[in-house]
């Protein structure tokens, strides 16, 4: 069973605030998810994991050429709020 502290740490990393009730709920639910992954671990795989399915002669490089994508406005207009051609978000703390 995942501890209360572990659930709170995961919640913090996901920027979530949990109620007492939710802490208990996620302790049980996340434990079940992890148990399932334990089951998956029984499947024999190598360290390369699912990159293995790609044949090694599939290497495909791209030449270093610029081809500008013309509809960047289309990409920006997906954003709920745009300011100075930037995506505007609520104030955030620094992370890099």
């Amino acid at each position, binding site marked *: 069973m995942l501890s209360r502290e572990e659930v709170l740490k995961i919640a913090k*990393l996901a920027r979530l605030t949990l109620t007492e009730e939710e802490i208990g709920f996620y302790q049980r639910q996340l434990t079940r998810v992890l148990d399932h992954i334990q089951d998956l671990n029984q499947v024999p795989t190598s*360290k390369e994991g699912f*990159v293995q399915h790609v044949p090694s002669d599939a290497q495909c490089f791209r030449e270093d050429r610029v081809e500008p*994508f013309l509809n*960047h406005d289309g990409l920006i207009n997906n954003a709920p709020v745009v300011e100075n051609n*930037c995506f*505007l*978000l609520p104030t955030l703390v620094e992370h*890099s």
Partner: protein
Amino acid sequence: MSLEKYEAVIGLEVHAQLMTASKMFCCCPNRYGSLPNTNICPVCTGQPGSLPVINKKAMELGVRAAIALSCEVHPESIFARKNYFYPDLPKGYQISQYERPYSTHGHIVVQLKTGEEKRIGITRIHFEEDAGKSNHESYGTLVNLNRAGVPLIEIVSEPDMRNAHEAGQYLRALHSILRYADICDGNMEEGNFRCDANISVRLRGADKFGTRVELKNINSFKFVEKAIEYEIQRQVFAVESGEKIIQQTRSWNSAKNITEVMREKEEAHDYRYFPEPDLPKLVFSLAWLDQIKKEMPELPQETSIRFKKSFELSDYDASVLTGSKELANYFESVVSHSKNGKASANWVMNELLGRLNAANKEVESSPVTAIQLADLICKIDSGEISGKIAKTVFEEMFATSKDASSIIKEKGFIQISDPIALESAICKVIENNPSQFAEYKAGKVKLLGFFVGQAMKETQGQANPALLNELVKKILDR
């Protein structure tokens, strides 16, 4: 506080932007300074269904860096996803390399101010894409994704450095190598060469490392050295007063000259690394690696060895002149025209660099071109002007960017090599200094220098020094 009881353990992580035309996994321009969000596409903004395709040139530059840093290059490596939530990371993960980077086990040899050399290990180099840029304003955070997907290499050193000076020298050497080999332009203001430092302190001689603190994104060599210096003192002071060092990330505040807490360190497994399923294993053919090796540009150490051999320079001179690619090119150009290695080295190092430093200029924007300086050196070598006059001429050249010839003409600086003109100047000096002349004649031969100096003054420094010396002696002994 007894700093001597402690030693610092420093490891550096450098992110260097690769000089490609396009981004790492898409065809958007890798360009700084464009209007926000104009160099973006479905791939680098993480639109559903888009897939990355590797830029060959980025791989080539990465391999070149590995060779330049004496690293092993692995023919097979793996891209991995580093997962974290932040708005300037549109996919929710950064494509990087984790368990199997393309290159490991290198080193750089750095020169210390004590004159010693120190070998600093490089643990690994891996490829990764850059994130976008967040600008924090009072009304919110503005995200610009022009930088998202720009190709980087991260160069991780061994924790081999023990003080700020060693860290500074390592960074300078690394910066110079990457610029020489045309891998990274090294522009620190634009963030194309960024440094994070891991620092801990321990009692001298202890084998266990102390708790380390990470200093993030310091953008000049000077600040790196200052920040490390400050951080070492802060940690020693904390340990001495019984405090526990907390593993955290700090940043350098250059206005207050202190480091400040940014955040608590997230453990490595919080990034949930796993192999990138959208990219195959990264495979370099041996033939391609060979070709990259063959096409390697000359590196600073090789240039330095060549300078020493071709122009008979000392270790020190050669190391100064290869401090940057631009300076080495300037010097080569001077020497190829002046045909005088030692004089060219002296003029570049003493006169030119001194004035450039004082004027806070780089050699690229020197008011005196290499050809102009070479021309001045030729005029000394041919006896047209004396070395002393040349310094005055150079001062004028630096101030006005004019050629030596026109300054010499304007100021009437031509060297006097006419024995008759010199003889009359010498005779005048003797007439004006009868008592010194008598002393000389009575055996005080040391006064020869006095007469030479006075005669030089009499000719406003324009006398040919060798000839003047000879004539003074001849006339005094007559």
